[in-house]
């Protein structure tokens, strides 16, 4: 177990329940592609595909007919002024909101309207804008919670003496992985601390580390830099870049234009519930509608 900080694609040693097919398995049928674009293979190199997504709250349309896809191993930024519908889109993907219309595919499989737990089990995990730590649990316990397929999550195995042995062995294995992850995020000195005692920036790090303990394929980051000091911001961005190099796919929601422009290779700009522009940072920077949307908002 030593010397394995992160194992993004190492599916073989992933702790999983037997009944559940690994997410990399090819679905039997390619999904119906409503966008008219040709589907390449099962997921066509696009783990996440959002098609015609709409979400209304009462009379308010927060997201209107949004379609995009995220390519594998990329770091994509989702930006837009306040109220553009970023968070709603994000929450629809993560399963917190049920979309009013549209479909969301993860690895070619529709996940629209799934429970957050089902989506996370498929390898699409999220973080929260305001770091939501489990405050009365230690950093270690927060981390140990995350891995999927833990034997000890069965009540009988936890309680019956004979079966408990297997649980302990797995716990020891997970503990090693947790420590490695904590070291990677440089919060291992806080391991025994209650999460509630951590500073805002440390919570963000813990939140990301915890999400990665689920051994995901793709991570949805909801403003991971909000309220973080510049030094820590660097550190978090370094981690994201490093992890991306190891094969993780990231979708990053952020309202800080500079962060997105300097770090993402693909940018989606939302405005008033719709996609305003999509492309590489350089082209987005030149896009007049984007400039209007941002400057227009600040003029008001």
């Amino acid at each position, binding site marked *: 177990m030593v010397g394995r900080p992160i*194992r993004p694609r190492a599916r073989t040693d992933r702790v999983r329940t037997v009944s559940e097919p690994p997410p990399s398995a090819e679905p039997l049928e390619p999904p119906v592609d409503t966008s008219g674009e040709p589907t390449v293979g099962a997921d066509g190199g696009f783990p996440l595909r959002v098609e015609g997504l709409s979400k209304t709250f009462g009379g308010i349309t927060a997201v209107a007919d949004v379609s995009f896809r995220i390519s594998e191993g990329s770091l994509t930024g989702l930006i837009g002024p306040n109220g553009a519908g970023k968070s709603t889109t994000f929450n629809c993907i993560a399963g917190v909101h049920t979309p009013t219309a549209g479909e969301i595919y993860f690895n070619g499989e529709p996940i629209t309207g799934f429970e957050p*737990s089902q989506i996370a089990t498929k390898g699409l995990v999220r973080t929260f804008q305001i770091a939501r730590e489990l405050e009365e649990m230690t950093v270690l316990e927060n981390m140990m*919670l995350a891995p999927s397929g833990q034997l000890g999550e069965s009540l009988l195995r936890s309680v019956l003496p004979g079966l408990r042995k297997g649980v302990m062995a797995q716990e020891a294995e997970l503990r090693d992985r947790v420590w490695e992850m904590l070291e990677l995020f*440089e919060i291992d000195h806080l391991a025994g601390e209650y999460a509630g005692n951590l500073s805002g920036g440390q919570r963000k790090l813990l939140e990301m580390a915890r999400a990665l303990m689920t051994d995901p394929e793709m991570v949805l980051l909801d403003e991971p830099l909000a309220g973080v000091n510049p030094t820590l911001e660097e550190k978090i961005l370094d981690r994201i870049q490093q992890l991306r190099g190891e094969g993780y796919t990231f979708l990053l929601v952020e309202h800080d234009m500079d962060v997105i422009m300097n770090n993402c290779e693909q940018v989606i700009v939302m405005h008033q519930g719709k996609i305003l522009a999509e492309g590489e940072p350089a082209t987005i920077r030149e896009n007049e509608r984007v400039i209007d949307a941002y400057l227009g908002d600040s003029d008001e």
Partner: protein
Amino acid sequence: MSSADSSLPGVGRLRATLTSVFAGHDGRMIAGTMGGIYLLLILVGLLAGFDAGGVVNTLRAATVYAAGYGMLVLALNLHWGYTGLFNIGVAGFMAVGTYTTAILSAAPSTEPGFGLGLPLGVAVIGGMLAAALLGVLTALPALRLRADYLAIVTVALSEIIRLGIKSRPLAEFTLLGTTVGTGGGRGISYPAPNRFGSWALETVPGGGAVYDVGAAVGVARPVIEGVVYMFLLIASAAAFWVFLVRVGNSPFGRVLKAIREDELVASSLGKDTRRFKLIVFAVGCALMGLAGYLWLGRSGFVNDLSFRPNITFFVFVALIIGGAGSNTGSILGGMVFSSVLFYFPQFVSQNFSPGGVAPRNFVAALDGVGAFGAYALQNISAIRFMLIGIVLVYLMQNRPQGLLGHRTESAAAIDLLDRDAGMRADGGAPDTASRPDRQGEDGE
């Protein structure tokens, strides 16, 4: 109480000694608390002129209370302390467990009530299953709701159950050609669990000698049998404790804690929180049903009045005193609440008659110390609830987490901090530059 005179020089040292003896030793804390309660009861009992039999019987009564409340508080701790499920229908689930066991085990011709006459083991398991099933049925719709709605649903359910037990249709009905029923307002009689005492003493070789020893020191046979049953209750409470500690120190318990802290986080990490909540609710309700039968139903007769909602609130008070989320705290809370706050005042008032005529109202009682004491002794059953209220207010102000709440109780099957020292030294301040090397070693 010790904080009142903390200005005295010896108190600090005493506190330090107490801390070193008890802190971190759950067994010592439980034994120490119970020992203190025993000491108090023995002193007061001797003052009241008790003989050995009287003292033993007093200690037995206090212990039965402590073990009974201990079991119930532990079960509630699983719901509320661990998972944050606000179940205020404890009495209802106790009633279902007790009544089901009673009906299953009572002889067909029982009066009052009507039973099936099944073996006791089957009846006990049946009672637990019935309570668990009802728990699941309640939980299925209610767990989707926010915590406070679950509270409303459960408190309403517990009253529905109680009124249902009293109702005429359920008092006697024919099921598959057999007449069964709750006996309605007359209650139900069934083979008393506390007959275990006499059964054990007659069955176990040498049990008869215990009677002789008892007779020699002046302890009557029923008291000895009661003491044996008391040990059964202690054993059940201990079994509850072991079970719940194991649940707490496991990945299962970790998810429960996470649900309590923030359900959306647990869900977003791939935990099917509804499954966990359903299991926990069912298990907790089954334990409440068993505790109800063993403790409230120990004499072999219950009626609807045994399961009034105030039991639920007593159990909650005990859990708050002990500290929600702590299993040892649950036991301590059950002991302190039931023995000290609930049983002790009653015990005092029963055994000390007021000197002279007690004043008839509170204003008259303010006449002097003697008058007030007499008044207090006569009205102790009401005054002890004021006492409980005062203790609760004091706790909320000074120690809202209870005696042992917010304690560092691990949520893992192993010690998470205990890892290879070499690895920790290596990882103390890792720099990113060293990472690629580590990756190169990735063998699997």
